[in-house]
């Protein structure tokens, strides 16, 4: 082991630093304000069952705003406020400051009563209803749709089904080909009996999904993350950043059982975007019929939705006016990293204005 060159002084210095960081962290935690997230002011313009449709008005004067609003459809997994975690690095605020009026669909927290909701309900009913509400509220006849992660998968289905309501489509960290060789989530879950999961739990608990996500990188997201805690908590600013993210990570709603089963079966198991034969609510969903301009944003280091999974979009939408944006970040970093903070909203706004 010729390369291991530890000496007592070095180890002692490190331990002293760790102890000092621990002390600082404790002091920081003692004086930390509440962990605030989703701090951008909004109006709830529509409520139905568990969902809410939030309207965020651009901070620019009306005459300087984009002519069409943007509608953001987040995943059913985790919560929409990942785009508004921290006021300093909020994608939402950046879009508002650049003249976009934004509608965000907050899916809420499904409970036992939602056990039998399926993808037809989510896409043809809830999403379509909310888009109609946004169109009526904004006075537009079409809007720009942005889908994030699973919300991107929904948005692709929606655009194929309701072409006339969507002007331009943005997909962000969106899985399209669910069976790329580096799709660890697919590999880890392929022998799990989904029928049994739904029979056992009804709705799939958020904590169940969190365990699966942690299982993708158990050391880095386990021991290593915990050991690095003191480093993250030494100052108020870094502690707030860290704890906001933790709050979001563990704010994982349960998944409506039927919709979850359908999503796993149609996409993870049968890869219907790529293999074809996708139907939602009895209607064929054919992505090759999408002729809209599409901006596909993906993360180079995304371990949840590998870049290749997102990049498959170009091939399955051959008639769209396709463009893409590579962000050198992971799944969440695409929205919250310093690298992405300017790049992503600038690109979106410029592309929408083209």
């Amino acid at each position, binding site marked *: 082991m010729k390369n291991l060159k*530890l000496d007592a002084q070095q180890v002692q210095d*490190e331990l002293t630093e760790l102890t000092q960081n*621990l002390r600082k962290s404790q002091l920081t935690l*003692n*004086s930390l304000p509440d962990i605030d997230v989703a701090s951008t002011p909004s109006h709830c313009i529509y409520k139905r069952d568990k969902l809410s449709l939030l309207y965020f008005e651009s901070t620019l004067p009306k005459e300087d705003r984009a002519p069409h609003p943007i509608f953001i459809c987040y995943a059913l997994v985790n919560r929409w406020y990942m785009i508004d975690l921290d006021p300093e690095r909020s994608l939402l605020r950046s879009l508002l400051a650049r003249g976009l009026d934004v509608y965000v669909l907050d899916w809420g927290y499904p409970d036992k009563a939602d056990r039998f909701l399926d993808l037809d309900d989510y896409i043809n009913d809830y999403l379509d209803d909310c888009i109609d509400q946004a169109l009526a509220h904004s006075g537009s006849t079409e809007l720009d749709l942005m889908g994030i992660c699973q919300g991107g998968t929904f948005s692709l289905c929606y655009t194929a089904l309701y072409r006339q309501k969507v002007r331009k489509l943005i997909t962000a960290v969106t899985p399209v080909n669910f069976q790329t060789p580096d799709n660890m989530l697919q590999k880890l879950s392929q022998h799990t009996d989904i029928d049994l999961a739904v*029979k*056992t739990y009804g709705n799939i608990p958020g904590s169940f999904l969190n*365990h699966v996500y942690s299982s993708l990188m158990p050391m880095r997201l386990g021991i290593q993350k915990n050991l690095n805690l003191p480093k993250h908590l030494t100052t108020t600013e870094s502690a707030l950043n860290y704890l906001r993210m933790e709050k979001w990570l563990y704010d994982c709603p349960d998944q409506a059982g039927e919709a979850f089963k359908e999503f796993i079966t149609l996409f993870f198991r049968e890869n219907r975007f790529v293999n074809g034969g996708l139907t939602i609510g009895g209607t064929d969903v054919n992505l090759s019929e999408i002729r809209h301009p599409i901006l596909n944003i993906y993360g180079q280091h995304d371990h949840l939705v590998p870049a290749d999974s997102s990049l498959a979009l170009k091939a399955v939408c051959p008639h769209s006016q396709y463009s893409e944006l590579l962000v050198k970040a992971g799944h969440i970093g695409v929205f919250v990293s310093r690298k992405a903070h300017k790049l992503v909203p600038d690109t979106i706004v410029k592309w929408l204005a083209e």
Partner: protein
Amino acid sequence: MQADFHAQLHAFFEQQQALFTQWLTPSPEAFQTMSNDQMKASAMMASKTAGFLKQSTQLLEQLKAKALDKGLIDSLIRQLSEQTQQHSLDSILKQWQIPHQFQAAIEKTAAQNPNALFSTWRHTLLFTCPEFHAMHEERIKAGCEHLANYQAALHTYIQQSTQITESAVNRLKHALEHNEQPIESLNQLHELWVCCYEDAYAEAIRQDTYQQAYGNITNCYMALVAFQQDMQLSAYEQQGLATHKGLDSTLQQQKALHKEMKAVKKQLEEQRLLNEQLTHSLIELSQQFEQIGGNLLPKTSQATQE
């Protein structure tokens, strides 16, 4: 120099001790000002770093006593490996934590003898749920089978997990021998260990044997929970109590009705559009007829037009 070092070490130990004492006996005011989030973070930080500090302090003492030799390196690697294996086991047991009644049975059954397990588990069930008196033996046997399947799946998964740790250790040893960059700090060593482990894990996760082991433990665990729920359900039904099965059935019916209503609404909307188109066509046709002197428009359509 040696005296200085001793003094520093002593100061460091005192500092550490003071810090942990402060954590263990915090002032009530400190907790009053902390929210739940902060308290959770504080507790996690204390528990996770305490073990690391303890081990590192032991290493420091050993390093102080003698230079880094093979024995010390082996001991260091063993510590990392054991710590990781323990963490993996904790995670496994947390993720697939056996339902309470089954756990009680297992705790009372030291050996994995199915007969002993059967009788102990049966006793536990009868003790905790008297309704099971009425249950058929076969059903209890089925429960035992679920439990045995779970134990076998857990055993296989733990074997996989151990193999991953062993592979990570080999990778670490190889890296320490062959990498160009020397490891000069604990942080660097830990980072290298994490990389080796994640590489070994990523390789394992691509193998069907690991995927099957993961799927199997997940399925066996869920089967066990589902079985327990079924037994509870039977017991509730025997008592004439409402169950989630009844609620699910109602929800399913409501859902079916909702879908039917949606389909009817869609049909009505399509009919309305067709009617509109028809009326529009009739009006156009009527106007054309009027131009040539006839009148085709029915009375209702005339009224609509007016």
